[in-house]
C-alpha cells in the first residue's frame, strides 16, 4: 500500500548551504569590528544629558498586544490610554504633558527584552510592564541594570520586586489574593472534598500561583487528588481532563492564562465536569467570555479591583472607562494599568516640584523617581495603595467575584460576592 501512495521525492541534501568555519570567523570579526566602531562613534552618554522634555515627560510601557497574552495587553492599553487622557487633562506633570510610548512585547520573553531595551534607549524616565510575570523575570533585570524604574501593572508571581530595587508593582501578588477564592468556594459549598489542580508548568505566573492555591487547599484539609500540568501554548486538554475526572473531583482550581484557561473550562464542562471551578488571576479579564462562553458561568475568582469601590479615584476611572466603552464594566487589568500610570505621574509631580525635571540629568532623574515612587501613598481605583521599601504593593481591599453569563452566553460580568 505504501508503494502506491508514496509521493517520495529524492532530495539532495548538500553541504552547499554551510559556511566554513574560517568564513564564519572572518564574518564574526567583521561584525565585532563594526559594532566596536559604531560604539566608539557616539557622543556623550545620553544618560548624563538633561531629561529630554521636548515631546513631553517621556514614559514607556511594554504590553503584550499580540501573541497568546494579547487579551491582557489590550485591557491594559485601554487603562493606560484613559489614564493618560485624564492626567494630561489635569495638566500633566506641573504643566508638562506626559508622553507615553507603548510597545508590543508579543507574549514572550525575547519580545519583552527587545521592547524594554528600545524604550530605555529612547530615554524614558520609567517603564510600565511587562504584561506577564514570565516576561518580567526576563526583562526587568535589563531595567535594573540600566537603573530605570519599573512599575508592573499585572505581574503577580512571587519574587518580582525582589528582582531589584528599581522594580515595583501595583498588582498584589498571588499569595495575598489566591487563597480568598478557595475560602469562598468552600464557604459556598462546604461539602467539597476532592480538588483537582491544573497549571501551566512553563509559565512563571501559573507555577507561582498554583503553589499558593495548593497550600491554601492543603491548609483547608483538601490535599489535591490530582495535579495536572499543561504548557502555555496548549489548547487541547482532553488528556489532562479525562485523567483528572477519573479522580472524581468536586472542585477544580486553574492557574492558567486567559485563552488556555477559557479553553480548559469549556472542555471541562463539555466532558461532563459539573463541580465548582476556581480560577486564578490569569483569567481575570472579560476576554475569557468569548472563549468559554456559557461555560464561564459560575467560576469563582479573587480580584484586586472592584468597580463597586466608592472613592473619588474609582469614580473618575469609571467615568472615563464607561464613556469610552459604552457603559461596560472595567476589568481589573485596566484598573491596574491606570493605577500604574497614576503612580508614576504623582511621583513625577512631587519630584518636579522639588527640583524641575529639566534641571536633572536622565540617570539622576530615574534614580530620584524610584525613591519618590516608593515613598508615596496613592488614592487609586484599586483603593489606597503604597509600597514596601522593596517595591511590593500594599493594598487594603480585595474581593471575590463570580462570573455571571447572560442567557445568550456571549457576554457576562464579574459579580462581586458579598
Amino acid at each position, binding site marked *: 500500500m505504501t508503494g502506491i501512495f*508514496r*509521493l517520495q521525492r529524492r532530495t539532495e541534501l548538500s553541504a552547499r548551504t554551510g559556511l566554513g568555519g574560517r568564513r564564519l570567523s572572518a564574518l564574526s570579526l567583521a561584525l565585532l569590528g563594526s559594532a566596536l566602531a559604531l560604539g566608539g562613534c557616539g557622543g556623550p552618554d545620553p544618560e548624563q544629558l538633561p531629561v529630554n522634555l521636548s515631546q513631553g515627560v517621556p514614559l514607556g510601557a511594554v504590553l503584550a498586544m499580540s501573541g497568546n497574552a*494579547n487579551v491582557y495587553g489590550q485591557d491594559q492599553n485601554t487603562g493606560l490610554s484613559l489614564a493618560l487622557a485624564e492626567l494630561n487633562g489635569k495638566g500633566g506633570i506641573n504643566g508638562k504633558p506626559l508622553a507615553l510610548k507603548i510597545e508590543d512585547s508579543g507574549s514572550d520573553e525575547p519580545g519583552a527584552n527587545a521592547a524594554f531595551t528600545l524604550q530605555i534607549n529612547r530615554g524614558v524616565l520609567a517603564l510600565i510592564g511587562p504584561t506577564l510575570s514570565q516576561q518580567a523575570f526576563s526583562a526587568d533585570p535589563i531595567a535594573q541594570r540600566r537603573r530605570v524604574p519599573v512599575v508592573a501593572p499585572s505581574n503577580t508571581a512571587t519574587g518580582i520586586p525582589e528582582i531589584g530595587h528599581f522594580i515595583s508593582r501595583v498588582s498584589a501578588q498571588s499569595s495575598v489574593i489566591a487563597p480568598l477564592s478557595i475560602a469562598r468556594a468552600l464557604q459556598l459549598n462546604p461539602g467539597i472534598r476532592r480538588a483537582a489542580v491544573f497549571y501551566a508548568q512553563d509559565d512563571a505566573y501559573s507555577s507561582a500561583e498554583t503553589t499558593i492555591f495548593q497550600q491554601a487547599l492543603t491548609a483547608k484539609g483538601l490535599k489535591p487528588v490530582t495535579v495536572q500540568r499543561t504548557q502555555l501554548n496548549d489548547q487541547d486538554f482532553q488528556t489532562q481532563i479525562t485523567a483528572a475526572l477519573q479522580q472524581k473531583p468536586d472542585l477544580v482550581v486553574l492557574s492558567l492564562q486567559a485563552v488556555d484557561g477559557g*479553553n480548559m473550562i469549556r472542555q471541562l464542562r463539555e466532558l461532563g465536569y459539573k463541580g465548582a471551578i476556581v480560577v486564578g488571576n490569569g483569567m481575570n479579564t472579560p476576554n475569557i467570555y468569548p472563549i468559554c462562553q456559557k461555560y464561564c458561568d459560575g467560576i469563582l475568582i479573587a480580584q484586586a479591583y472592584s468597580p463597586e469601590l466608592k472613592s473619588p479615584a474609582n469614580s473618575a476611572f469609571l467615568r472615563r472607562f464607561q464613556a469610552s466603552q459604552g457603559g461596560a464594566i472595567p476589568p481589573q487589568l485596566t484598573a491596574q494599568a491606570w493605577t500604574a500610570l497614576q503612580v508614576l505621574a504623582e511621583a513625577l509631580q512631587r519630584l518636579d516640584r522639588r527640583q524641575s525635571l529639566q534641571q536633572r540629568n536622565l540617570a539622576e532623574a530615574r534614580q530620584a523617581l524610584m525613591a519618590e515612587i516608593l515613598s508615596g501613598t496613592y488614592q487609586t481605583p484599586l483603593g489606597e495603595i503604597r509600597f514596601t521599601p522593596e517595591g511590593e504593593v500594599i493594598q487594603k481591599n480585595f474581593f471575590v467575584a463570580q462570573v455571571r453569563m447572560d442567557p445568550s452566553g456571549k457576554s457576562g460580568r464579574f459579580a462581586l460576592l458579598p
Partner: protein
Amino acid sequence: MDLIQLLLNGLSLGAVYALFALGYTLVFSVLGVINFSHGAVFTLGAYFTYLLIGGQAGANGLLAGLQLPFALPFALALPLAGLASALVALLIERVAFRPLRRRGADSLLALISSLGAGVILVNLIQLLMGAESYAIPIGTLGALPAALSLGGAQVRTVQVLLLAISVLLLVVLSVWLEGSRSGKALQAVSEDPVTAQLLGIDSDAMIRLAFGISGFLAGVSGGLVGLSVSIAGPYFGISYGLKALGVLVLGGLGSVPGAMLGGLIIGLAEAFVPAAWSGWKDAVAYGFLFLILVLRPQGLLGKPQATKV
C-alpha cells in the same frame, strides 16, 4: 486510566496532527520543500470559517466590527473556508515558489521564501482582525451532544468529527492518487518532474494542484481546530505547524500514509504520558520521534534518501 480513554485521547489528538501534516506532505512530494506558510494558511482557514458562520471581527483590527451579511451553517462554511484557503495557497505558490523555481534556485531559498510568506500572512491577519482570540460559538454543531461516551470513555464530539473528517480526507486523497489520471500524474511529478514533463505531464499544473489541495486541507483543519479549541490569535497555527513537522519526519517525508501514521503515533505517545508527567508530553513525543529517527532515519514509511556523488 482506561485503555479506551487513552486510545481515544491519542487518536483525537493525532487526527489533527495528521491532517495538518498531509498538507505539508503534498507540497513536499512535488517540490521537495517544506512549505512553512502552511501554518498561516491553517490559521486563515480558521478565520474564514469564523467569519462565514457569521462571526464578527473584534475591535482591534482594520476590519473592526465587520460581519458578513449572511451566516452559513458550519457544514457549508468549513468547505468554503477550505476553498478560500486553497486560493491563498495558490497565491503563495505564485509569489513565493514559482519565481524561484523558474530561476532554478536552491530549494532552501524556497523554504525561506515560504517562511516569509507565512510571516506576512500572519501579520496581515493581525492587521485586519487584530490579535485577539476568537471562538466559534458553542452549539455550532446543532443538536449534537458536547461529548460522546464510547465504551465508558468520554470524548468531545468535535474530536470525533475531526477524526472522522481526517480519515475521510485520507481515503479520498488516497483513492484520487491511486485511481485517477491526475493523481498518477502527481505521483509522476513527485518522482521526477523533468521526466514527467517529457511524458507530457504539465508539471506546473500538478504543482499548483498540490498547493491547492494542501491549502484546502489546511483551511479545513484550521476550521475544525478553531471549532474545537477556539482561535487563539493569528499565531495559533504555529504550535500545530511545529508538531506536524515532527509528524511529517516521523512518517517519512512525502509519504501520505506516513503522515497519517506519524500523526496518530505522536498523538498516542502524548496521550499515554502519565498524568503526573502531562506537562512533559511534548518532550516525550519528540523524544519518541528522536528515537525512531535514530533507528530509521528515513521515517517509518519513508524511502532511504538517494546519495548523490
